[in-house]
Every structure is written in C-alpha cells, then in structure tokens.
C-alpha cells in the first residue's frame, strides 16, 4: 500500500474502514433470517455441534461398553433407541457418532479448502504450463465418481478413519481449485491489481492480500454445500467396510453391522441411518440456503 492511502486510513477506526464488509454481513444475516428453511438448517447444525461437544454428558451409557445380558433390547425407557447385538446402548453410540461425523467433515475441509484454493489461485494467476498441469490434474481427479475414487484409495491404504479422511480429501480439492482459478482470472484483470503491480508489490503479497480474500467467499459457499456430502461419503465407505472399524460408534458402520438384525430388531440399523439423514439434511439445508443468498444471480428473481 502506498504512503498516501496509509495516512488516510489511519484517521478512521477499524470499524469505519470495514463499514462495507459489516453492511454486507448484516445484509447476509438478514437474508438468512428471512429464509425459514435456512434457519432450520442452521438450527440443526448448531444442535449437532452441541450434541458433538456434549456427548459425554448427554449419553446415558458408555458407547463401547458391552452388556451381553441386555443384547438386542427393543427401545424402552432405559434404552431409548434399544441396544445392539453386543448390548451397547444405541442412543449413546448415535450421540458419540455425531462428533466423529463432524470431525471427519471438518478435517477433510481443513485440508482441502486451503489446498484447492492455493492450487487454483496459483494456476489462475501465473497461467502457462503451471495452470495447464494443475487444471489437467484436476480434470483427471474429477473424472472419477467421488465415492469410487475414495473407496479405491481407502481399500489400498487399508480401512481406517484417518485413511477415510485422506481418501475423501483426495477427491474434493479439484472443485475448489477450479472455482478459485476462475475467480482469480477475473480478479487479476481489475485495475487495482494492475495498480499494485505497477508500484512493485511482490507477487506473493498480491496473491495473499488481494486475490485470496476475494476468492475465498465463493469457495466457502461451495464448501458448505459439500459438508453434507463428505459426511455421506464417509458413512458410505464405512458401510462397505472400507472406513471406520469396530468398535467405533461410526454411523455407517453401525448400519452395516445392524443389517443382520434388520428384520427382527429393526432399531439396530434404523437409528444410526436416521442420524446420517438428519445430519446431512441439516448441512444441505444450510448450504443450499447460503448458496441461494450468496448467488445474486438466483436472488434477482425475488
């Protein structure tokens, strides 16, 4: 930044300088409040976060402690969701599973968002062979259906929770890279970037302080749409047997072992599956709502 702008900006408080961002955020929150379905999604997600954090307090039993005398009990006052084939309380397992599902999702996105965005802006800003290599790699990874690629990697690395996260992370980055690249291409032509370049601001600084913040909003919106997907793919992998392993209270795994008791003890596979549905539904509701609000193209019709 040149000296001139610095002297102007120091006269204002931080709040004043960011007034336009604040009004944007306010406008965004107002739109969220107006849309009931988005609010419902937000409520579900906040509820899930609460359950994940408070699971040790909320759960009436130990999620992995076996009690063979009480195996396959139907839902009752002492076991609201019944017990499984080893006498473990299903409610407690479902509650503890929430944290597991959220953990997988958060870690995957924490790896993928920065990675994808970084590759995308580098490709978009520098162009040339670097762009070509990164984007063709993205094309190749996008040619696999996600679950299939994730399962192949999960199988090769060996089934475990860590490998599930690695496997899903490998499948997700191209989406963010593509988005960030597209944004970068349009931002890089703008006058203020030209101005920065002309006063000799280093490239990395332009990337980090101007381009990165401007493309993060689109990619974050896209990531909220992927949150549910990540949870669903992780559950699918452990259902197949390529993800979390027993005795972890992972929902997909619980549905998988519960399959054998489907007919006579319906509650064993039903409740964990319902938990997956509600969780993914909550994230999709929220993501869908945020996308609608953030995309002015769709908002125009309102």
């Amino acid at each position, binding site marked *: 930044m040149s000296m001139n702008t610095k002297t102007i900006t120091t006269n204002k408080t931080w709040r004043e300088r960011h007034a336009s961002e604040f009004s944007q955020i306010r406008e965004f929150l107002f739109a969220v409040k107006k849309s009931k379905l988005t609010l419902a999604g937000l409520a579900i997600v906040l509820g899930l976060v609460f359950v994940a954090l408070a699971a040790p307090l909320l759960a009436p039993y130990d999620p992995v402690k076996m009690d063979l005398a009480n195996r396959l009990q139907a839902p009752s006052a002492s076991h609201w969701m019944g017990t499984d084939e080893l006498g473990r309380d299903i409610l407690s397992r479902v509650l503890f599973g929430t944290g597991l599902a959220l953990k997988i999702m958060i870690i995957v996105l924490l790896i993928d968002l920065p990675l994808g965005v970084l590759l995308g802006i580098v490709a978009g800003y520098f162009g040339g062979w670097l762009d070509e290599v990164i984007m063709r790699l993205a094309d190749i990874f996008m*040619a*696999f259906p996600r679950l299939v690629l994730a*399962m192949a990697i999960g199988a090769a690395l*060996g089934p475990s929770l860590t490998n599930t996260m690695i496997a899903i992370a490998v499948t997700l980055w191209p989406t963010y890279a593509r988005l960030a690249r597209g944004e970068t291409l349009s931002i890089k032509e703008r006058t203020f970037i030209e101005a920065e370049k002309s006063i000799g601001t280093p490239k990395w600084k332009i990337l980090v302080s101007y381009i990165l913040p401007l493309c993060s909003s689109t990619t974050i919106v896209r990531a909220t749409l992927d949150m549910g997907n990540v949870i669903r793919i992780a559950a*699918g992998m452990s259902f*197949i047997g390529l993800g979390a392993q027993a005795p972890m209270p992972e929902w997909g795994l619980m549905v998988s072992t519960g399959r054998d008791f489907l007919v006579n003890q319906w509650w064993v596979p*039903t409740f964990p*599956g319902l938990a997956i549905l509600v969780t993914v539904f909550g994230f999709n509701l929220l993501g869908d709502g945020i996308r609608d609000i953030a995309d002015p193209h769709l908002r*125009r019709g309102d």
Partner: protein
Amino acid sequence: MSFSRYLFKRLALFFLVIFGVVTVTFIICRMVPADPVGAILGESAPQELVEKTERMLGLHLPLYQQYLRTLKGVATLDLGIALRTNNPVTTDLKKYFPATLELVIFAMIIAIVFGIALGIVAAIKRNRWPDTLSRIFSLVGISMPAFWLGLLIILFFFYHIPLLPAGGRLAPYLSPPPTVTGMYTVDSLIAGDFQTFWNALYHLLGPALVLGWIQMAYIGRVTRSSMLEILNEEYIRTARVKGLSEGKVIFRHAFRNAAITVITMIGISVGFMLEGSVLTETVFGYPGLGRYSVNAFLALDLNAVVGSVTLIALCYASSNLLVDLLYGFLDPRVRS
C-alpha cells in the same frame, strides 16, 4: 472457436483424462501396504503358489514395466485374470456392466419424469407451499444415504408387505434370455419372452427406486432454478401479454429453454448414479458393476480394481464429454 476445433480439443482432453485415470488407478493399486496376494490366497498359502500368483499379476516386474503392462492391458482390453472370480476381468465386466447400465437407465427414467415434474411445479408455485414441500422432498433425497434407504425399502416391501423380490436380477426358476445386449429386459423382449421381461423389470424396481429418488432430487432442483430464471425473461412476459394460455407459456416457451440446463444435469447424473449404484447394488444384492468393484476393493483384487474403476470413470467421463459437446454445439459461447 469453430465447433470442429472445439470437438478436437475436447476429445484430446477426454483421452488425456482416460490416460490419467488409468495412471492414478495404477498408483492407487501399487500403494497398497497390505500384501494383495496374501489377502487372496491366505497367509498359509504355499510359497510356490504365492510366487506363481505374483508372476501372473506381474508383481515381480519393476514398477515401470508393471505400469506399461497395465496401460497395454487397458488399450487391448486384456486386463488379466480376476483372482477372486478366476475369470478374465474383461469377461466379468462384460457380464456385470450391462446389469448396471440397465439399472441406471431405469433409475434415470424415474428421476427424469418425476424430477422435471417436481421442478416445474416448484417453479410455478414459487415460495408457496408446493415449492417448500418439493424443496424439502428434494433435499431429503439429496441427503439420503442410499444404503440405508435400500435397507428400509427391503424391510417394508420385502419382509412386511411382500411386494419386492429378494434380490438378484431374475427369479431362480427363470433362465436368463439369450445374450444380445446383456440387459435382461431388452434381451427378453428381443427373444419375445414376456414372463422373463416382467420378472427382470420387477427385480429392477427396488434398486431403481432408490437410485431414482436421489437423482430426482437433483434434477428437480436444477429444473426449478433454470425455470425460474427463464420465467423472469422478457419474452415470457411477451408471450403472456399475447394472451397465450399458461400451459403453453410454461411448456412451449419456458421449459423448452430450460431444457438445456436440465440436459446438462442429466449428464452429470450419470456419474452420481454410478456412484450410487455401488451402494445400492451392495444392499440389494444386485450383481452389477458397482457390487463387483466393491468386492474387488475388499479383496484387493488388483486386476479387477483397475478394470472396474477404469470402466466406471470411462462412463463418467464419456457422459461429461457428451454433455459438453452438446452444450458446445448449442451454445457457441461455451467453446471459448
């Protein structure tokens, strides 16, 4: 850019992507820390047999030779023997792929018909209860774990109300129709065998409903948003002002123009369905490509993994190619 140049560039990318897919699959198969031969043969297998199997898989060769062997195998459609089934992988794929194709086609019909209807209704009744209802219905579909929905359908419509068959592609008392396409419904019609046709269709019902609902949700959402965009256009207002009936405005003018986005979505759906078929086929015990690939993953049957993953990615990439070409043909702006 002219369409022929666009076509050339897009085709070149397609072949590059397929080459990349085979390479990535090869790398995945070779990063196996576990011992794939041991996984198939068991730990107490005699040394000779282990060595023989390793030689058959080419595992004794240096890595670059193994890679060339895989590339050559894919190019010549000779992928070696699948250890789990003891058949050539290509023979297995020929048997299982039509089953999945058939399933995907039927699911797609369900998804398209109901998805488009849902989307149009939601767009016309925007922000009123039919829209909210269809939004919830779609989002539940998108959020539904396919394997769990499959289990519930089996529980209700097989055990409680016996409406659906137990699994597989045909009742045990029927023999498959003579193979032409490998799709039982089509082959039985060619053979004029209606009993087999209805039975095959009946076996498709459960898995096709599961796959179809999930895709219906996506298609419904896309139809809604592209219809909304078009219903705001000037020429729709003009059509209304002209005094055309609402039905004509919706179907003749609006939907026709929304269709291009919907077609794109259908192309993308093919990929989602292939993905969904992996879980759905496993739950319903439907012997298709999805279940074959899962079994190959679980057994670390490397030749079968390479074959099935490449085939699935090939289908996915081809449907994307078709969509892009169609789009490029219809809309010159895409070509740049």
